[in-house]
Structures are given as structure tokens and as C-alpha cells.
């Protein structure tokens, strides 16, 4: 996937350069400025991910996700998913392990849903581009909707 992106970017950059050198220079400068603009926020996000994953161990997460954890477990899983930002290559193996160790479908599903759709950590960045109202509303609705999806999945998969 990443390789495809690189090939595509380099190919188009070459085509662009062949057609118009000035425009190409402008586009690279724009790319750099956009990158430099969000770099501080991205670095903060990366460090917070590191700190949270170090402080919250998988064993502690395990307690939240049991089938017996009920409503409290569902709510805790949803909040955990909303405030943390765990990349997919870490989150899915973790979720799969929780599932095998007796985690509830609803708890795991709501965690996966809020993890993806709700981003408390990326909220400052979202507000910068989309404004306060749109960002809060989008994240709030996504949080609520995750419960609907999770309970429906519980019904389908159990």
C-alpha cells in the first residue's frame, strides 16, 4: 500500500515536472508547508500514543472487556477507544486476543468503532480545520453511533 503510494507520487511528480517545472516546484513547496504545519501536532499525538500504551497494559484492558463486565464494560471500552489512538496493526491483534480470551463481542466492537471514528487526541487538529461545532458534533455523534453498531453486532455475531 505504502509502496503503491510512493510509486504514484513519484510518477505524477515526474509527469508534472515534464509538463511544468514552476508548477511542480510550487506543489512541492505547498506539500512541505502543509507537512511542517501539522508536524508539531503529529509529534504530540505520537508521544501520547507511546505514553498511553506504556501506562495501560493489555492485562488491565483485559479486565474491562470480559463478557461479565456488562454495561460498565461497554462504556469503559467505548471511552478507551475514544480517547486513545492505537494504530490498526496494534489494535486488531489486541482485539483478537481479547476475543479469544473471553472478551464480549459488544465490548470489543464498541472499542473498535470508537477507536476509529472518535478521536479525542486528534480533536485539536480537527477543530483547526473544521471548527469547534462541527468537530464536537461529528465526534459526539460517532461516539453514540458506535453503541448502536456494537449492539447490533452483538446480536448478529452471538
Amino acid at each position, binding site marked *: 500500500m505504502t509502496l503503491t503510494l510512493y510509486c504514484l507520487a513519484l510518477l505524477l511528480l515526474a509527469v508534472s515536472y515534464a509538463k511544468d517545472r514552476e508548477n511542480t516546484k510550487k506543489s512541492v513547496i505547498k506539500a512541505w508547508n502543509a507537512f511542517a504545519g501539522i508536524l508539531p501536532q503529529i509529534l504530540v499525538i505520537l508521544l501520547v500514543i507511546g505514553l498511553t500504551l506504556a501506562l495501560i497494559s493489555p492485562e488491565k484492558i483485559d479486565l474491562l472487556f470480559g463478557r461479565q463486565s456488562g454495561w460498565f464494560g461497554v462504556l469503559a471500552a467505548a471511552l478507551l477507544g475514544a480517547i486513545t489512538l492505537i494504530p490498526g496493526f496494534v489494535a486488531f491483534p489486541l482485539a483478537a486476543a481479547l476475543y479469544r480470551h473471553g472478551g464480549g463481542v459488544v465490548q470489543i466492537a464498541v472499542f473498535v468503532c470508537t477507536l476509529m471514528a472518535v478521536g479525542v487526541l486528534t480533536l485539536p487538529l480537527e477543530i483547526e480545520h473544521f*471548527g469547534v461545532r462541527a468537530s464536537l458534533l461529528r465526534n459526539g455523534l460517532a461516539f453514540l453511533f458506535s453503541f448502536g453498531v456494537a449492539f447490533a453486532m452483538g446480536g448478529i455475531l452471538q
Partner: protein
Amino acid sequence: MNSVVRRYRLFLLLALAQVVLSLWQPKMGAKAMSVSWQNFLEMVTIIPPIFLLLGLFDVWVPKKTIIRLLGERSGTTGAMLSLSLGAFSAGPLYAAFPVAATLLAKGCSPFNILIFIGAWSSIKIPMLLFEASAMGWRFMASRLILNIPGILIIAFIVSRAAAPYPATDRPADYHRC
């Protein structure tokens, strides 16, 4: 120089926190560092091509093309195109906002931009494949099918109640509650 420090002050603070954690709890500190480093590597590999493409897009694609494909009058085709654009993307959510901001400036409608963000966050194809291999096809497919109407409903409500604006014409209270 001062402004650089100001822009990175939160980063420096957190970096200090990781150093303190490493001194106080070496095992936890090492974990934090290794996770941060892993994510940093993911970021530096995937971000450059996305931003290069974004720059090229900004310079080469005319505004009227985006208005035609994704603007207010683009209808169902525009919505489907936005959903696919988000789903076929790669990279973490924080990379989606600059892309969305550029599309918005080019004339993409608020409804479509919110569909794009929703799809990017929840139904990215590479992520779905990974999800299916970890959680099983039934888990992935049921989440996907339930999520698509959710993305559309949320995009509809947010675009009606609090549409995002492009950088050029934002209301004064845009960044305040």
C-alpha cells in the same frame, strides 16, 4: 527561534515526560519510547507521498472539476465518490484533515467532506483486510455494513447543523465554543 519553541512546546513537554518515565520506571519508559518510535516510523514512511500528492492535486486540479465531481450539486455520485476516496486512502486520521481541508478549499461540499472523513476513519480498505484476518470476515463485514449508513447519517446531520468552512471564508467564532 522562539516561535519554533512555542509551536513545539507540548511536544517538548511530552518528550520530557517520557524521559522522566524512563528514569523512574525503566520498563514502562522503554515501552513508551518503542511505541512512539514505531509510530514515528509509520508516520515518516506514509506521510511524504500523501503530502506530495496533495501538493500536486492543489496545483494541477482545477477548482471547477472538484465542484462538478464533489460540490453541492454532485448528488449521489458525489457522495459515492467521497466514500470511495476515503475508503481507498491510506494513513492515520491525522493525515486526513489536511487532505479534507484542501478538498474543501477546492469546492467539495461539506456533506461530501464529512463522508470522506467518516470513510477514512472507519472503512479504509487496507484496514478492513487486516481486520478480517484478525477478527474474522463476519466481524469485519457486519461492522462495515452497519458503518456505511452511520457515516452518511452523521455527515448529513453535521453538514446541516455545523458545516465546516474552507480556510478563506470562516466565521469569526469558528475556533470558539
